[in-house]
């Protein structure tokens, strides 16, 4: 599991790679939350292009970060999920609360 965060024109982009399950979601959650609270970005995009596996733990991860971003006055979006990951996202109905591009 790898995470790389950079900022471009007021939008922070967190690029993830590897697999998201309950085991490694904990570490991702901690790292993303540390960044959100300290940098307070107005917009955070999580790039899922390098994610090769995700179960419903990924949904919990997105929902939790979306809530924190809202509390900090910002918004979250999800970018580049692979087709298989889109199916998990669709099943959860999360596109109603988080923009998916």
């Amino acid at each position, binding site marked *: 599991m790898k995470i790389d965060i950079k900022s471009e024109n007021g939008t922070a982009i967190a690029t993830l790679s590897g697999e998201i*399950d*309950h*085991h*490694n979601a904990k570490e991702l959650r901690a790292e993303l939350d540390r960044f959100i609270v300290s940098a307070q970005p107005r917009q955070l995009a999580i790039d899922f292009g390098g994610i090769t*596996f995700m179960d*419903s733990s990924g949904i919990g991860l997105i*929902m939790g970060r979306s809530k924190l971003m809202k509390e900090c006055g910002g918004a979250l979006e999800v970018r580049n999920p692979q087709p298989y990951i889109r199916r998990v996202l669709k099943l*959860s109905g999360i596109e109603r609360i988080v923009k998916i591009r």
Partner: protein
Amino acid sequence: MEILNEIKFTMPSLSVNEGAARAVVSSFLIQADPTVEELSDIRTAVSEAVTNAVVHGYRHKKGNIELTVRLLPERVIYIRVKDKGCGIEDVEQAMEPLFTTAPEEERSGLGFSVMQSFMDRLKVKSTPDKGTTVIMRKRLSAHGD
């Protein structure tokens, strides 16, 4: 029911074994030559079932999780995930989408919904204080489909 091939293994309820379970299932399924989508579906369902055992079944005490994967006739994959943890009081309620007893762990309550959607059949047997057994089946498409 005739069993063409089977693996059965036991692992302690450590969250790191969620990935190990997926890896073992993937290796075993190579012989059945599933499509990429079918393999993803089965891996995800196994991940959900094993995670449930780690997070819920063995919430208060560690224990063992037994995973059985069978290749049955007509390209049917049978998966059984069994724990001897705390069990589920109300299986019907636990299977409702978005129902979770572990919101502090950011569990979305979608585990059973994912298993139901990605597999053909799902059966959950549970007895409080004795444990839970999840049985899932999926029929793979015929070669050349």
